[in-house]
């Protein structure tokens, strides 16, 4: 609605600029992808073949594609829930009641992005080293807790670390969302009209934050489905990106196909999820 109005309002010059920007962006982003794809489908001696992509699923190994995918999907879900459940109330609180704390929280939320992931892993390893069992082989409570969350059959360590790694993006997205409308006035209006807090948050604030929340969730999802360094140094082998990267193939074409496939698969998954979300919203608007 708003978008269309703005679109209508714009003059011819604006539209031309918009098309130029979109075209250049398409060339810059899709061009290299097409170049890589053209390499993956080359057949020695001319011609086109999809065998590189088929080979992704023909690799020997104990872990199957489906299992690795579901493993990471669950981790992604846990990460998104953790990150959003933590940051939405926190940022609402900061925005409405504790503006003085915003600066500190903002800086803290930026820190995970300041250094390469290997530093965080070294730090985590340091914590594990500190808590490790002594000469007698018995560890304290800290050791048992750390061992429990690291266990690969229920890798709670990964959503925790990934939530931290996505914090800068989640914070920024939600912050931009909170700045895009007058939160305080809406809350006041809603409360003075008699709505309870759950209704205010659920029916007034969250829908207004829809773009911010979905973008934050997408970022979390894409990070988890593509993150390899931290998971592999922490010795996990089952997450999907780790499984993909560790497929025992030496063919350059298959390796390139793996990269392309990973990109397109996560993109497709996100499109499916966002399609579901939009359809739900449209239904809601239609019925209200």
């Amino acid at each position: 609605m708003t978008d269309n109005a703005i679109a209508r309002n714009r003059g011819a010059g604006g539209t031309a600029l918009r098309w130029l920007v979109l075209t250049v962006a398409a060339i810059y982003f899709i061009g290299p992808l097409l170049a890589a794809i053209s390499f993956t489908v080359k057949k020695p001696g001319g011609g086109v073949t999809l065998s590189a992509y088929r080979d992704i699923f023909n690799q020997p190994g104990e872990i199957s594609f489906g299992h690795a995918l579901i493993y990471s999907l669950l981790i992604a879900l846990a990460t998104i829930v953790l990150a959003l459940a933590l940051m939405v109330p926190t940022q609402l609180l900061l925005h409405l009641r504790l503006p003085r704390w915003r600066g500190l929280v903002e800086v803290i939320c930026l820190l995970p992005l300041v250094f390469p992931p290997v530093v965080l892993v070294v730090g985590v390893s340091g914590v594990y080293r500190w808590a490790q069992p002594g000469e007698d082989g018995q560890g304290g409570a800290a050791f048992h807790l750390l061992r429990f969350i690291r266990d690969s059959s229920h890798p709670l360590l990964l959503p925790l670390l990934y939530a931290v790694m996505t914090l800068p993006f989640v914070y920024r997205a939600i912050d931009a969302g909170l700045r895009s409308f007058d939160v305080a006035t809406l809350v006041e209006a809603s409360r003075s009209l008699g709505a309870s807090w759950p209704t205010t948050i659920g029916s007034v604030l969250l829908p207004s934050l829809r773009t911010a929340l979905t973008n934050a969730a997408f970022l979390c999802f894409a990070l988890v489905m593509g993150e390899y360094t931290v998971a592999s140094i922490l010795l996990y082998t089952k997450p999907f990106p780790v499984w993909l990267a560790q497929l025992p193939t030496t063919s350059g074409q298959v390796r390139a196909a793996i990269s392309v496939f990973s990109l397109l698969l996560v993109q497709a998954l996100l499109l499916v999820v966002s399609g579901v979300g939009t359809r739900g919203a449209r239904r809601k608007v239609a019925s209200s």
Partner: protein
Amino acid sequence: MERFVRVTNVRRLGALTAASVLALGLAACGSSNDTTTDSAEGAPSGGAASTDWAAAQSAEDGGGMDALVTAAKAEGTLNTIALPDTWANYAAIKKAFTAKYGIKIHDENPDGSSGDEINALKSTKGQDSAPDVVDIGNSYALSGALEGDFAAYKVATWDDIPEGQKDEGGLWFSDYGGYISIGCDAAKISVPCPTTIAELDNPKLKGKVALNGDPTTANAAFNGVWAAALANGGSATDIQPGIDFFKKLNDEGIFNKTQVSPETVASGATPVVLDWDYLNVGNTAALKKSGVTWTTTVPADGLVSGYYAQAVNADAPHPAAARLWEEFLYSQDADGGQNLWLQGAARPIELVAMEANGSADKAADAALPKVDDSNPFLPTEDQITKAKDAVTKNWSAAIS
């Protein structure tokens, strides 16, 4: 105000419940589909047998090879780290070990570095996923031994490992090595494949010569710089000519700094690669399938060899399996580790002894890239450290 706090708590509680349900879901999915059999009581808290093997310094120490095999089979799993399938024929070695003893190998972080391996050793004490054995660079082996990370263990063929290539107490021992070589895809360059370091300096090879990584990060790249040094008047005490040589290549646009990967080689972006000979040779078969003919030559003007080292984790979760793995790797049988490495074009450390006692695979031995190394380049640990310092200080500025 209280209502706000309470409501957010409820929301948070709901979210936490969702998260814990998810965690349980992960656990359910994990345990039902868990095909790798990490023994739940991985830490050697079991019967007397496993604790014995953690302290055994040789097979006899623990009661003989048969006892070792039995104990290892009882453990059922071996955790390895940073053993890529395409590195020195590890795919075949792992397969042969599992076929012979029925012990599953759980390989973690195959693309990990020696630093990652030591880091994992130090931070996974008491965990089921701790690596049992490591395959690391020489300097890491030396420092790890001093820091007490490794268990002392001497394999049955201990005496066939040359002096100076093993820790006298058995804390680490060299396993395989090779020479710096020039791998080349003749079809993608307009001149014959360079066979010496000097031939790399050819303007027709613009953008085509690559080192396998950064010399301060990658072992093969560091030794590649040293090979270039030797070819240009350098020595064990002077690696600067190597840095200068690559500076020259870089200034002339010959040096390609992108990271070498199967994709870059297959696509022809990096048709000439300096790397260990067993890695260059090991890639030949796969490249053939992509239609690339890859040849490997050891440059006569820059003969640099390097060996990696094996070590057993002092706190290995599967101590018997770890020691059996080492015995397998150092077995001189026709289907033992040493010959499997030889078949992967990696020179096993016991090659000299095996050639003498006739157990070396003759065909594989003959297929090794020809090397005339009558005067081997053997820098001391001190000289190596100084060379690393020099590269760290001067490489970046020279190459940018």
